[in-house]
């Protein structure tokens, strides 16, 4: 029943958000695209000019490039696997009747509120430090050699830190979904003789599917752009062993001032994010229609 008047009022009310987001999305992106075809170094402005696709070629021929894409995907997929599977198990556990459930929830959700630099520093110095860390203490207690996490297994170390940050998120959301499951349905299934496993596969899991989709979508958005955790712990190293795409672009742009190459990397990051987003948004859009 929208009249002409209310419709134009609605448009007027939406304009600020839409315009702001549009400008924020388009203007910098166009500049990045433009720079990706330029030779530009703020420290050496003489050789500026259009260079076609050579930035992309340079970025591509950089051995760090493939490594960084691989690291980006490894990070996203490993953390998703750990947090979704761990989150389901943890949600099932916390959903059981127990004493002090409220406090357990609070303890489990806490890491999510820790800012990334703090999480990374605490893990780096107090937990994983090869000499003074808690892991090293535990290893020595059992008479084993402490592991030099950031020197020898930098990606594993970062995956552990990032998974620790996101496991609470997955758990909280899956737990919320679990708690909205109809108790009577569960009982009916139980009376029909369905065991725990079949109840889980045929009843609980389908019920949680929407929550799982949402968890995957939202985590993917954030995991594709992990930055502070790497900056604080390994600084991308040793070599490029723990450099992901965002970190490589940051290095090119603000440390080496190779703006053209950095922009080409940025464009590639956008394409990668779009491929992921395409599938994720479709899934969420479908799910939200229900």
């Amino acid at each position, binding site marked *: 029943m929208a009249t002409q008047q209310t419709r134009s009022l609605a448009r007027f009310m939406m304009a600020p958000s839409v315009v702001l*987001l549009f400008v924020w999305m388009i203007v910098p992106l166009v500049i990045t695209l433009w720079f990706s075809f330029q030779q530009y170094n703020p420290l050496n402005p003489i050789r500026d000019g259009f260079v076609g696709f050579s930035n992309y070629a340079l970025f591509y021929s950089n051995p760090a490039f493939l490594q960084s894409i691989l690291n980006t995907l490894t990070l996203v997929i490993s953390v998703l696997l750990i947090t979704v599977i761990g989150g389901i198990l943890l949600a099932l556990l916390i959903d059981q009747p127990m*004493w002090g459930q409220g406090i357990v929830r609070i303890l*489990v959700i806490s890491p999510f*509120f820790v800012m990334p630099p703090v999480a990374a520093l*605490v893990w780096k110095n107090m937990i994983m430090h090869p000499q003074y860390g808690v892991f090293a203490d535990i290893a020595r207690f059992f008479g084993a050699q402490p592991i030099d996490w950031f020197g020898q297994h930098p990606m594993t170390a970062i995956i552990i830190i990032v998974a620790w940050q996101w496991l609470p998120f997955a758990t909280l959301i899956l737990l919320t979904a679990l708690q909205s499951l109809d108790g009577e349905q569960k009982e009916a299934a139980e009376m029909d003789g369905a065991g725990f496993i079949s109840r889980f596969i045929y009843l609980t899991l389908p019920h949680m599917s929407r929550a799982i989709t*949402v968890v995957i979508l939202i985590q993917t958005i954030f995991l594709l752009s992990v*930055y502070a955790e790497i900056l*604080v712990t390994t600084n991308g190293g040793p070599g490029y062993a723990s450099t992901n795409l965002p970190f490589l672009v940051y290095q090119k742009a603000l440390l080496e001032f190779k703006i053209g190459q950095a922009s080409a990397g940025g464009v590639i*990051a956008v394409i990668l*994010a779009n491929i992921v987003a395409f599938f994720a948004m479709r899934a969420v859009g479908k799910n939200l229609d229900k």
Partner: protein
Amino acid sequence: MARAVTTQHKTIATVAAWIVALLIFFPILYTIITSFKSEQEAIQGFALIPSGTFESYTEVQAQSGYFKFFFNSVLLSVGSTVLALLVAIPAAWSMAFSPTKRTKDILMWMLSTKMMPAVAVLFPIYLIFRDTGLLDSRIGLMVMLMLINLPIVVWMLYTYFREIPGEILEAARMDGASLWNEIIYVLTPMAVPGIASTMLLNIILAWNEAFWTIRLTTTEAAPLTAFISSFSSPQGLFWAKLSAASTLAIAPILIMGWFSQKQLVRGLTFGAVK
């Protein structure tokens, strides 16, 4: 018929859940414990009982001026949230109460802007900030954080507003309420809880944002994220101080977070999981 829960089952669940929960919470707990140790104690190996000194806290403030960063964090997170609400409330309002065929597309598009990797626009933003003198300014960063979180704010408000029944508006209108009265007396009271939870979640997100806040600041506008990152190598081995600084940086948001668990789920899933 409630299922009878055996005490044994409950005991096992309790023990298992507490062990897992304490393991997950351990890094935070250990940080808090270490912050009350002296530097000497902090590197002497695993110990759960600190000597209870406050010396690290006073030193963190004395050496680095912790409260300036804290103040910036408060200003940036609250400021950007208020800005975002000002822009988002009208939009969410109109989408919830007079939806059109395109409303859903607009919402999805807004969400998609969130997918753009920040790093892809790092240099342009850096240039724009440099050339307009916004680098290391609180206003610039506030606008930046507002833009980053705007899609989430619009979405979240939209899901709350959509739950306000439209019939109430019609009833008020029939009773002769003007548009203004309608907004003040009928809608606002119903919208406040939703706006409050949106605000809470957004403050948490802005407080913890750790890309732009680190890259676009140096000293003046630097919030706690930048402060903590600067701790990474030179002072790496002063663990008691590091722990004290970390504890101070996370405590306010941790406590806020505990109180907002329910709203958090809803906000972070764009209303898809309640």
